[in-house]
């Protein structure tokens, strides 16, 4: 019998499609994958140590750097955690503004994440660049309201930095006219394309029970058939006032996650429509005036607040000892925990699929390595 030998290949940390500095030590027999060992730590900045050294407010701009695609969602989650810890209540209008920003961030994240995955699959970035165009429009609006495109630093404890004005609302409405055309183009481009089906169907299958055991959350969990969405399971902000659906897959393969993300973009569109209608007027105030931001002291105790970020459940676990900065500051990052299921999903597939499966999990290394 011909003696064959397994090949050990390092995919990463510098590789075109590992979405950041992430390394997979892959042992391959021919083209099929035998074992995959993820290696982390290339982007570790000890974010949690910083959280314990900084005061609560000083830590807010650092949360932008966690999942740098959705800094609005990170700010919202961190602000909610400190608000539950310090018992600060948030005016209505601020909650609506936060929901609008989260849903816009979800649309831009799914648009680019799917674009990157299709780029990994070989479609030469057409879907990605259409997604980038929509993302640019949304980032311009973030820039108008928060001052920066990606590092928004927009939430404060008890509200937001700056109110949204009429220019923002009119631009948002114009954007809402354009989005459905983009959704249709995106779906028409690749949804039923035979080669995408060949490359995505039945690849990287994660059955329902295994998905729960791997404690994956977000589109990966919903792709495997578990209808668990924090906006429905434990409604926060004003999500209980909106009517929207939770898309769920059946098989749990790359194609299901792709479909779930596209359906989620349409659901976010519905939420945005309702949020614009129900937006309370400016008299309600966009920030709780009683909170002294930079010298906020939380009573001793602990708090955990979580938000449905586009990548999954993003939670902040804070323990306070009564002083101005957190005694323990832990980030429950969705990409980090979703990655634990990568090795299991990739066994038995070829290298070309490993890259696509990694793209379908949609990780951001800022959040994984913290």
């Amino acid at each position, binding site marked *: 019998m011909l003696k064959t030998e397994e090949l050990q290949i390092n995919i990463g940390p510098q590789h075109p499609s590992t979405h950041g500095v992430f390394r997979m030590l892959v042992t391959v027999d021919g083209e099929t994958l035998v074992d995959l060992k993820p290696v982390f730590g290339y982007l570790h900045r000890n974010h949690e140590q910083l959280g314990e050294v*900084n005061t609560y*407010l*000083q*830590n*807010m*701009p650092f949360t932008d750097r966690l999942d740098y695609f959705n800094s609005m969602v990170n700010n919202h989650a961190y602000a909610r955690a400190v608000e539950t810890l310090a018992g600060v209540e948030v005016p209505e209008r601020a909650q609506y503004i936060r929901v609008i920003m989260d849903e816009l961030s979800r649309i831009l994240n799914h648009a680019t994440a799917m674009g990157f995955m299709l780029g990994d699959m070989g479609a030469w970035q057409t879907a990605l660049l259409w997604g980038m*165009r*929509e993302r*640019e*429009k949304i980032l*311009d609006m973030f*820039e*108008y*309201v928060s*001052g*920066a495109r990606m*590092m928004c*630093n927009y939430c404060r404890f008890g509200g937001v*930095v*700056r109110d949204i004005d009429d220019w923002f609302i009119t*631009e948002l409405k*114009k*954007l809402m*006219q*354009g989005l459905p*055309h*983009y959704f249709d*183009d995106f779906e*028409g*481009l*690749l*949804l*039923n*394309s*035979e*080669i*995408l*089906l060949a490359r995505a*169907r039945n690849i990287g299958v994660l059955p*329902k029970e295994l998905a729960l055991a791997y404690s994956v959350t977000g589109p990966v969990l919903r792709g495997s058939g*578990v*209808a*668990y969405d924090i906006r*429905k*399971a434990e409604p926060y902000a004003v999500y209980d006032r909106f009517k*929207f*659906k*939770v*898309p*769920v*897959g*059946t*098989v749990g393969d790359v*194609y*299901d996650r792709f*479909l*779930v993300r596209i*359906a989620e973009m349409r659901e976010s569109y519905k939420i945005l429509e309702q949020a614009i209608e129900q937006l309370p007027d400016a008299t309600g105030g966009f920030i709780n005036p009683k909170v002294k*931001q*930079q010298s906020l002291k939380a009573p001793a105790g602990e708090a955990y607040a979580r938000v449905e970020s586009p990548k999954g459940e993003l939670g902040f676990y804070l323990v306070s000892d009564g002083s101005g900065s957190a005694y323990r500051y832990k980030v429950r990052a969705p990409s980090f925990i979703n990655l634990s299921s990568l090795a299991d999903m990739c066994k038995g597939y070829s290298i070309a699929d490993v890259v696509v499966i990694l793209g379908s999990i949609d990780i951001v290394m800022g959040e994984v390595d913290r």
Partner: protein
Amino acid sequence: MTLSHLATEDVFVVERNDADFRAGQGMTKGLGIVFRKFRKALFGKPNSDRADTEGQFNVQYPEERLVLPEAYRNMPILLYDDATGHELCTSCFQCERICPPQVIHITQAKDPATGKPVPAAANFVLEYDTCMSCGYCAEVCPFDAIKMDHDFELSTGNHPELDVNYDRLLRPISYYEAIAPTMWSDVKEQAMKKLQNNIKRRPGAIGRDHGQKVKGGAAVAVAATPVAGAAPAAAAKPRGPVAAIGKNMPEEKVAKLISIRAANAAKRGGGDAGAAPVAEAAPIVETVVDTPAASAAPSGPVAAIGQNMSEDKRAKLEAIRAAKRAQRGE
């Protein structure tokens, strides 16, 4: 398993339609859409407003530029009043305390006569390379002295230049009013009121004056050079910052002050090793970035001689220096 807390119609299964008969129609549909996009981008009008999803959308950067929104924040700048030339900053250290990466270093100015601290900043160094433009300093500043700039073309090859000192941070209020009109108008009267009573609390119109901030006037140019001259001496002094020379200080007072300074500098020429980091950073920057007036200044603590200093003054200064050197037996 459907969630019991989720009404059944809230959950919908994405249809995979695996059983469809696929004969290339999906791919041809995709090709058709891309061809339509190609036609629209090539012949259609460029993508102008937010509702438009067709046509070229990119901006040719150096030639065409996007209008930056008012709230845009890049690097912080300090403001000074156009009319009186006074800075709004009273070195209350609020921004230094809140700054997450701790990049702001302020040294409070002292009244040269009495030595008591004065609500003005002697030196204000901001490390532009570590600053992450989070905008907190602008938010917490009670006197609206520090604001976020809109200039993002700051790349430079010379790293020390990124420790921006006071002179290069200062911008007139008119500049900020141009880039962020409504934000300035909200805080305008409150900031001006505070500035007025700060000026009252600054004896002898003490305050870092810079040639470029007061409109015209040769006198100022002259005053500027000793200022520049004095600055390195001031900075080099390890113990504490020495008040800069006031804008409308009479002539002979300026000369007297220079001679005192030269004497002090010479006296402690040796014991200079453990200078505070701020002081250490400042002189390098000073000489490199100094106003053109004092560019000929020799390095080291000796007061710089401005090139448009009047002849007799230069001679007198040289004489004093020569005497000092002789006395030290160099």
